[in-house]
């Protein structure tokens, strides 16, 4: 399959936006993995990044702001044969949806979570996001951001995520390969993607990222402490790559009822369960 097969529709993104390479990398990853569009589900919340389901040929659940993960989990439980991908913004995933992020890392369902981390709220025109660097001045944070930035990778590691990666949308080939690995990973896979927002983030520009990113050698991807060290690097040097890759039993594996046919495909006849009331006799 060709990547073009998955590209769909006219985007509503600004010219030069870091979302374009993410979309191309995703289309490329799906094509190279040879996944039929009807077997793929892309879930998102609301934001610029969250428009992804409209631009990739696949099933799509473009839900509410902050609520990309819960329907993704529900859909996976109902039909575990779907490849479920969450593609959404940093505000959506770490701000409004922070609670779902925390608890789905713990659950470890078989989902790939791609966060378009532009360190800003794009769609609502440039307010700070949880990952904005301190000092960033916006129309709301008029004296600059005062809170320290959330570190999603470190958080995911602490919560027990089995797959933690950081990419940059300016490194498309690396991004595509990482996405493939995340999609194939058994369990919750986090890929935080540094994504320049040319309209609202005047701090973390293409150049700013380019000057800082590098590819460290990850000799043992199951070394949690080494992964943590990489996750905590930020500033003059920003490492990219899969920092941690150590599968643990998935949410679906732990649910015995899910073994066998996907729930959505099992037939049902009310009379067959009538015996359930005997316990009340």
């Amino acid at each position, binding site marked *: 399959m060709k990547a073009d097969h998955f590209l769909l529709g006219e985007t509503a993104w600004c010219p030069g936006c870091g979302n374009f390479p993410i979309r191309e990398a995703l289309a490329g990853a799906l094509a190279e993995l040879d996944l039929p569009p009807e077997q793929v589900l892309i879930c998102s919340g609301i934001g610029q990044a969250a428009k992804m389901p*409209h631009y990739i040929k696949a099933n*799509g659940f473009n*839900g*509410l702001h902050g609520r990309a993960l*819960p329907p993704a*989990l529900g859909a996976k439980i*109902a039909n575990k044969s779907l490849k479920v991908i969450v593609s959404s913004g940093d505000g959506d995933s770490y701000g409004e949806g922070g609670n779902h992020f925390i608890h789905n890392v713990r659950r470890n369902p078989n989902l790939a979570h791609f966060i378009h981390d532009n360190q800003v709220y794009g769609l609502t025109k440039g307010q700070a996001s949880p990952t904005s660097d301190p000092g960033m001045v916006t129309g709301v944070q008029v004296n600059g951001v005062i809170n320290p930035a959330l570190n999603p990778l470190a958080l995911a590691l602490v919560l027990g995520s089995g797959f933690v990666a950081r990419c940059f949308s300016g490194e498309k080939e690396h991004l595509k390969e990482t996405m493939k690995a995340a999609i194939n990973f058994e369990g919750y896979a986090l890929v935080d993607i540094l994504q320049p927002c040319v309209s609202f983030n005047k701090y973390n520009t293409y150049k700013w990222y380019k000057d800082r990113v590098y590819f460290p050698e990850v000799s043992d991807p199951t070394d949690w402490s080494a992964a943590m060290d990489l996750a905590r690097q930020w500033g003059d040097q920003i490492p990219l790559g899969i920092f941690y890759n150590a599968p643990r039993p998935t949410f679906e594996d732990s649910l015995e009822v899910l073994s066998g046919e996907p*729930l959505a495909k099992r037939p049902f006849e009310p009379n067959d369960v009538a015996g359930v*009331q005997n316990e009340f*006799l």
Partner: protein
Amino acid sequence: MEVNILVGGAAGQGMDTVMNLLGKSLVREGYGLIYTKDYMSRVRGGHNFSTLRIAGGTPWTTVHSVDIMVALNEETYKLHHHKLAPSGRVIYDPEVFTLPEEEDRGVAIELKKLAEEAGGKVMANTVAVGTLLVLLGMESNTVEELLEETFKEKEGMAGKNVNALKAGMAAAEKFCSACFPLPPKNEDSQKLFIDGNQVLGMAALGSGCRFLSAYPMTPSTGVMNYLAEKSKDYPVVVEQAEDEIAAINMALGASYSGVRSLTCTSGGGFALMVEGLSLAGMIETPLVIILAMRPGPATGLPTRTEQGDLEFSIHGGHGEFPRAVLAATSHEDAFYRLNKAFELADRYQVPVIFLSDQNFADTHRSVEPFDFSRLGYNRHLVEEGGYEKPYKRYRLTESGISPRAIPGQFPGETVLVDSDEHDQNGNIIESAEERNQMSAKRMRKLKALAEEMDEPDLYGDPRPETLLIGWGSTYGVLRETIDALSASGLKVAMLHFSDIWPLPQKRLRSLLPEVRLSCCVENNATGQLASLIRRETGLTVDKRINKNDGRPFMPDEIIKEVEKYHES
């Protein structure tokens, strides 16, 4: 002929054990009963009590008066002795407290000591059951049978409990034996001994519900417990969500992906869900929400009852979209009605809210076994050849219902849903024309949906002069009220709603203008159904009888109000 039993004590003293054991054996032996719970929002201490009424047929409600009281602490006696019939009895443990000298109705049983002798003080409640059996003139075989079943996996426990039971019986002999004759048995068929939440959980299972995501909140948690237990043997997944927002969004994802899905909560949780409710309306994804009401505002009275969220359930959620609101009235009806909720949700691709409340959820009654063959499992999914290619999730149709497919159903076809306004394919749009088309398409569904609503149940005089109107869990108390008022010579009937929104209006329009007095009886402060009737039909209900102290109505309270209006 009837017997009313009250068991009271502090939270954690095991009133439920007594009632479950006694209640279930009575039902097994063919007696009709109802058992209600009044409990505090705490795990230990405080004062909780349960009431059991044994009467011919299956009684609809409990009453104030008490024939036998089991007072596990002194407070129980102090709080309830005024309800005790002159010929009543109080079972108590003289080691725990002593009755006032003038009280001659005491049945002093050393519950704790006898339990210890039988093998452990946890069995004090079993001793009490033994004493109750003697007072009721019952044999012990059915209780023994139940104890065997309950403890079949715990070596020796059944035997010890039987000893405790026998000790309670022996100790009771000298007080009074069979001094509370039971009403005649119902010989017709075996009955279930079941509470409202179990009815709903079982109805969900029988409706083919495969997924429940919820966050624990009294009084809805029993539904979660029921289905979680069943998930060991049936293909249903119960997931405790991180919050109610996650709960409803997970359920929507599962429904979109192809399984019948459910969430359950109470008012506070529903408040967190309403954005998701609106999402269900927008993406036209079937969903059933059980809203088990308790008194608000805010945390309110967590373990008590109210019908305060009717308007909230009809109006909750931003924007305009079709929905249905149904309510649990009796155990007998709610089983089939929850199935109707699933059927409507699938057929019209809308959210359906099923209202229950603590009064319904926690009440056990003896009811006929349910007929599972009456349950529907019609998913209304489009079949190969039944749709225009390429597949579009929101095809414009005359009925407003678009053919629904699920992801992966057809090779090459994908399913896109979007919380933004969208075109037929599900893609974001902003044009006024497409917006109008989509909004009109959704709203068109309301017409056929309205025709699905059952007219309210009419019980009593077919040409009433006085009409009592109600909805939901007041069904039982209103029936007993009507029976009592009819017996006193009034031409009275009740009109009781189980399907509430869209409001069925035929009976209202024909009856309301004809009666001399109409009263809307609601467990809330303002009379929300009365207001709804006024808004939808322009008809005014004469009087509103309200109660919102967190306790269910008793027949005498309603009778008093009705008589008051009659006099004036």
